[in-house]
Each structure stands twice: as C-alpha cells, then as structure tokens.
C-alpha cells in the first residue's frame, strides 16, 4: 500500500488540469509551473528509489496500491516491480529533458501544448504502473488522443493529414484492444492481470488463439511493426520536434513495455509458443527491421529518415525479446534504453538544426553543419552511436543484442543487425556530408529565408535548446563508457519478466 505510485500518475494529471488556471493569472508563471510539475514528478521517483534502496539491492522490489482500498480481484490496483521501475525512471528522465527543450522550442499556443504534454506524461506513467487490463486500455486511448492532437499541432495540410492517418490507425487498434479486454472479461470474469495470467491457461486453445491474435494486432499497430508501419514516418515528420522526441523516445517504449507485460505476464509466453506464434513474431520483427533500414535509405527527409530508422530499431528490439532468452532480454532492454536516449537526442538536435531551413527535405539540409557547428557535432556523435561506435552507448547495446542473436543461433537476426548498422552508415553519412556542404547564400536567399517563416523560438531560448542536445550527447558518451551501471536494474527487470509466478503471488497473495 504505497501512495507514492498513485501520485506518480496524479502529479502530471494535476499539472495538466491546473495549467489553464495558471494562464488566467498570468502567462509568465506557466513556464515555472510546468517546471515545478516535472520536478515534483522526478522527486517522487527519486524518493521511491531511495526509500526502498535496500529491497532494490536484494532484488525483491515490489510496490502496490489498491485504488479505493478494494483488494485485487475486484478493485483496480497499481503495481510496480523491477521492470516498471526501470521504465518509469527512463521515461521520467526523458520527459524532464524534453520539457526543458520544449520550453525553449515552442513559441505559439504554449498553454495547449503543455496540457497535452502532461496528459501524455500521466498516461504513459499510468500504463506502466497499472496491473489492470481495462486500466491499460484507458491509458492507451488517452495516449492516442493526446498524441494525435499534438501531431496535428502545427495546423498545416501535412500535419493534419498525418494526424488523421495516425488517429485512424491507432483508434482502430484501441478498438481491437477493447474487444480483447472484453473477451478476456467474458471468458475469465476478471480484469486483474495477475488473476488473468493465473487461469489463462485453463481456456481452450481456440479462444486463446483468438484473444492473443486480437491483442497482437492491436499492439503491433501501435508499435509500428512491419504491416502497420505506414503511419509512423509521416507523423514523425510533421509533428514539432519535442513531440517527435516524445513519440519516438517515450511512446514507442511504453508500447514495448505493454507488449512485454501483455505477452509475458498476462497471456504467458508458453501459450504463444504452443500456438507457434513466437516464430512468426520473430521473423515479422526482423522483416520490419529490414524494411525500416531499407526505407530509411531512400527517404530524402531527415525526420522521416529518423522515423524509418526507429522502425528498424524497434523491430530489432522486439525480435531480440521474442528470443525469450536471458541474454535476449538483457540486450533488448539495454537497446531500449540506448535507443530512447539516442532517438530523443537526435530529434531534439534535428529540431534545432532545422529551425531555419526552408523544409526538412534533403537538399535543404545543405550547409546546416556549417551554420551551427557545435550542435551538428553533437548530432554526428548521436548518429555515430546509432551506427554503433565503440565509445558510445549504441555500441554496448548493439554488442549485447548481437551476442543474444548469436547465442540463440538465429543467424538471420545477427545478419539483420549487421545489415542495419551497415545501411545506417550509408544513409547517415549522406546527411552528414550534406550538412557540411558549403552553401553560397546569395543575397535574396538570406532575405527570403529570415522573413519568410515565423520565428519559432525566441533567441534567448536558443541556449536551452542547444543545451539539451549536449545533455543527450553527454548521456550517450557517459553511459557509453559506464554502461555497467545498468547492470543491476536490467538484472532486476529480467527476473521480474521471467518468473511470472512471483508477480501473481505478490499481487493476489498481498
């Protein structure tokens, strides 16, 4: 019974609802209020970690909270074990950095932006912490609607088209998820995850296949695996860059968490194995990674390219997790962490670099490296870590992912990883070269460029924007050298995935 978990969700929710009132008092206060909200959030997490550091040490970390005091089979409960702690920490860190970035970046309708932003924060915290199936559905729908609105934030033809496409896909997925939850309820009579996983085995295989198929389609659409990767690149392209940072950094990781939670704790991996679905999923994920990298090759729009490359990486992570081996989880989770930082960092840097270019197209990227050299160097460092250069974080995670594939004897997977990093070298270098190209700004170019577009960010905010990029590069390099630091949390989250019985016994027993 630990109230702190509830507050983790309530704090961003409260900030989201209080911002319009703060606007009424005076707009200047809003920025500090937002900072206050996110600082409170991170304080909560730190206090959680500090308080039960001992239980973290000896590995049996578990927190629980029953909404309204009702005990599990009836009431809705929040549970936090090793895995969700890990995800909460990295999401909160990323949210913290992106909020500071968006303070510097967003110029218009700041109020609306922060409301939506904190709703996403609350929803992602919620979906990580809940132990109740319907509760996950509610938070997923919350995520869809708010991110849909944020994608359409820039009110252009492109942005609204992307938002429509995004919403159609994700609402459909949400509907399927809702159908799955209902099916579970009607067959098992309960909505609590632990309860479901306890007697999911008792169902006969036809119903099991139907339910897991429905859940699978819903979550794969959300994660952007192969057959459903169409909405992802376009929405990354048109959304403002802090939103893309959130989408690619946090949202895709939350959906991955839901994927693990649903298919390992709720439905249980044995049922998947019984239905031989895990082989299909493994190959599908690898195929999606292959397509992601190949499509990235041909895209001549930097943000869309990063979108494709994140499809590639997400595919690779799901494939590694599908291996269901100890090393597989270790590599997968480490790659989730490193990919989150790298991708968020890249989009943040992109936002800064593309401020003054006419459009995101490839030949408008010309001369960007020369105009703002220091940020471009951070950008290159992040790209190099995506490729897997040794001193950076990307290398360590790629090393473990590759080891996992080799140990599991799936040489196709190893090939895809290598293929990915080789193609990454090609398409990233193309942009780095373009960035460094001399651009002879003729007289009218300059004039036309400065007065044509509304100045998104005010000058004094430039410092914060570039500062965040350096923060991300520092994280990459710092953790790159010291990635052993992740050993403890990764070990904890792996065993929380692996032995589901402990999870069930803790929730129901408690």
């Amino acid at each position, binding site marked *: 019974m630990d109230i702190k978990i509830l507050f983790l969700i309530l704090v961003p929710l409260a900030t989201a609802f209080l911002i319009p009132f703060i606007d009424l008092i005076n707009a200047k206060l809003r920025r500090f209020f937002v900072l206050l909200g996110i600082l409170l959030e991170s304080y909560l997490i730190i206090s959680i970690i500090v308080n039960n550091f001992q239980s973290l040490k000896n590995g049996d970390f578990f927190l629980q909270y029953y909404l309204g005091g009702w005990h599990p089979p009836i009431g809705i409960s929040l549970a936090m074990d090793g895995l969700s702690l890990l995800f909460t920490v990295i999401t909160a860190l990323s949210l913290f950095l992106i909020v500071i970035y968006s303070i510097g970046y967003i110029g218009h309708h700041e109020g609306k932006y922060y409301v939506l932003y904190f709703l996403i924060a609350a929803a992602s915290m919620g979906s990580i912490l809940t132990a109740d199936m319907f509760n996950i559905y509610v938070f997923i*729908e919350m995520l869809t*609607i708010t991110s849909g609105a944020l994608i359409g934030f820039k009110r252009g033809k492109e942005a609204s088209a992307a938002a429509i496409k995004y*919403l*159609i896909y994700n609402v459909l997925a949400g509907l399927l998820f809702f159908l799955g939850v209902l099916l579970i309820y009607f067959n098992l009579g309960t909505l609590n995850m632990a309860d479901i996983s306890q007697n999911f085995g008792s169902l006969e295989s036809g119903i099991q296949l139907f339910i897991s198929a429905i859940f699978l389609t819903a979550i794969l659409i959300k994660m952007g695996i192969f057959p459903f990767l169409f909405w992802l690149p376009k929405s990354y392209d048109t959304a403002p860059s802090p939103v893309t940072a959130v989408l690619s950094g946090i949202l895709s990781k939350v959906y991955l968490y839901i994927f693990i939670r649903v298919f390992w704790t709720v439905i249980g991996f044995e049922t998947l194995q019984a239905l031989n679905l895990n082989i299909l999923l493994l190959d599908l994920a690898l195929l999606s990674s292959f397509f992601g990298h190949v499509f990235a090759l041909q895209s001549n729009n930097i943000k869309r390219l990063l979108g494709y490359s994140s499809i590639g990486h997400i595919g690779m992570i799901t494939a590694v997790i599908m291996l269901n081996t100890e090393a597989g989880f270790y590599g997968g989770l480490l790659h989730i962490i490193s990919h989150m930082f790298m991708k968020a960092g890249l989009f943040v840097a992109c936002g800064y670099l593309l401020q003054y270019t006419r459009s995101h197209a490839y030949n408008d990227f010309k001369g960007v490296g020369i105009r703002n050299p220091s940020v471009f160097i951070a950008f290159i460092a992040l790209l190099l870590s995506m490729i897997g250069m040794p001193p950076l974080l990307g290398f360590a995670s790629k090393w473990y992912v590759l080891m996992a594939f080799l140990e599991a004897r799936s040489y196709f997977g190893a090939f895809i990883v290598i293929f990915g990093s080789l193609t990454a070298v090609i398409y990233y270098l193309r942009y780095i070269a373009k960035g460094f190209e001399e651009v002879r700004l003729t007289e009218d170019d300059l004039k036309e460029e400065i007065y044509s577009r509304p100045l998104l960010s005010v000058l004094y905010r430039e410092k914060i924007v570039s500062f965040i990029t350096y923060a991300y590069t520092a994280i990459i390099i710092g953790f790159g050298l010291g990635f052993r630091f992740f050993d403890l949390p990764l070990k904890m989250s792996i065993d929380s995935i692996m032995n589901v019985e402990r999870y069930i016994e803790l929730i129901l027993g408690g």
Partner: protein
Amino acid sequence: MFNNLIFIILFMLGFYALVMKTNLIKNVIGLNLMEAAVFFWVISFSDIGGEVSIHKLGEEVTKFNDPVPQALTLTGIVIGASTAALLLTLIMELNKFSGTIDRDQLEELND
C-alpha cells in the same frame, strides 16, 4: 448466438466504410459504427434479464445484471466520442487547406 451475428454484420459494415470509402467523413462514420457494434455486443452479452444493479436501501434484490461491462461500455462511449470529435476537427482543418476531403485527391495521406 443471435447477438454475435448482428455484431459481426455491423462490425464488417463499419470496417467496409472505413477502408473502402474514399470520403474521410464516411470513414469516421464507419469507425463509430464499429465502436457502436462492440458496445451493443457487450451490453447484449451481459444482459441476463436481471434488475438494474442499483442497490435500493432495505430491498432484497436477487438477480441483477453484472455492472462491470456496463461501466466498460460507458468509458468506451466517452472515448469513441472524443476520438470522433478530434478526427472531425482535423478533417475540417485538412479541408480548409486542401479544399477536398476525398482520400484519392489527397496525396499526403498515401505516403
């Protein structure tokens, strides 16, 4: 069995509108139709002819419908409405810029 059949028919109709029709608003209507089909299926499934599950003081009530699916449907309806509202505003926005809401003319939707 009857309610499953109606559910499938309605669901397929909605899906047909969503996928095959080129008019965006028709797609949104199709989407709502699918959601309505699911809600209808839930309620019909959980109706066992019992009382409304509101507890009157002092009264002894033996048989009442299970309140949980009803709660789920309520939330579902709320979510369906908000998504429809968001989609429609975005379609209006698109129309303002490109002048059409026909999916074929809109190139941006395809790539």
